[in-house]
């Protein structure tokens, strides 16, 4: 998958190469700019069983920095920040593919290279006993928990 070009006027940042579980690699630009979580909102998205985004709410679009058209049909890892350890996502996939819910603190990457922290819960969408996709709901985390997650992820990388 190709990266979207940075928005005109976006701040410069460091470049990282991410390797995803499917073997693909992508170059991402990262800045230190954090976007505050939107007050009172939930960020909601849905994927198919392969992790391709099929549906997302306006908060998801706003926070990602992409347009809805740029997001639908893309793999969810478009939001993966290089500071997130691969083990966290392995754990996520192992849980939901086994039909279990997954919770965790996640640093997401914006299109402009900035980031935002969330407390994410992912559930399998089970219909007639079969997993047909996954729903992810993020909410605002406390700063203490974000600091603890940051420290833990630094050790895991």
């Amino acid at each position, binding site marked *: 998958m190709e990266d979207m070009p940075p928005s005109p006027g976006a701040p410069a940042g460091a470049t990282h190469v991410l390797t995803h579980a499917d073997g693909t690699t992508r170059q991402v630009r990262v800045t230190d700019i954090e976007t505050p*979580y*939107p007050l*009172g909102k*939930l960020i909601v998205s*849905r994927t198919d069983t392969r992790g391709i985004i099929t549906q997302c709410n306006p908060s998801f679009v706003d926070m990602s920095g992409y347009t809805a058209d740029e997001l639908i049909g893309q793999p969810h890892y478009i939001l993966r920040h290089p500071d997130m350890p691969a083990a966290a996502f392995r754990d996520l996939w192992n849980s939901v593919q086994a039909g279990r819910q997954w919770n965790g603190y996640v640093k997401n990457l914006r299109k402009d290279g900035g980031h935002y922290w969330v407390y994410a*819960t992912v559930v399998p*969408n089970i219909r007639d006993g079969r997993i047909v996709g996954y729903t992810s*709901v993020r*909410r605002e985390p*406390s700063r203490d928990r974000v600091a603890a997650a940051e420290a833990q992820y630094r050790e895991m990388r």
Partner: protein
Amino acid sequence: MTFNFTVSPSFPNERISDWYIFNTWLQRQLGLPIHLELHDDFGTQRQAIAEGRVDMIHANPFDASLLVREKGFRAIARPEGSPDEMVIVVAADNPAQRIPELPAGIRLACTDDPCVNTLGRILLEPANLDTGNIQELGRETYIQVTKALLRGDADVGFLPVEAFNGLSPLVRRDLRVLVTSQIQVIHHVFLIGPALLPHAEAITRLFLSMHQTEKERAMLTALGASRWQALRQEDVEFMIDILSTLTS
């Protein structure tokens, strides 16, 4: 056979007669005997559900989860223009200006409305507040929640947006909203149980055309809705998936 109809007890008291008027209209339109039973609280309503004494319900999202996933209920429609949002309120002179400034040990006044309480607890998470460090003061009505704040018996209160907006300007002046939920994807739904499934098509048709006459539109307005919106079963399943993430 008389079918049993109930309404989630989160609606304002002044709408009680409007729900009876709606039920009379429903019976006439469908030609079915329907008994409306309004429960005082969520506990007695849940008991009625558990005992199979509900065939038709205007359900809050949490009860909808149970009814659809475990009791074979089917979604008919949802009221348009009334998402289930809530506010976290403090007395106007409370020093906290933002949720993260609320200290551990605060006294929370709330009713037993599972939807409002779940959203409220999520919105308190940025302050590291949870059931372990909140003193919860249960109140029977939203008026009592408001009184607890105004008397200084509670530090924060949970109210549906609709209940907060229904307070007099004088009362609202002495309160301050710290946060309003903007969840948008959670709403009440109208469900029918297995005994009414043979009538599902007729009920759906009736609901979706209800806004087309002036008289029936007025009935809808009295219930706080502008029209009934069609709902696919998958829409409700998706809402239930979202709700399941909020209780973890």
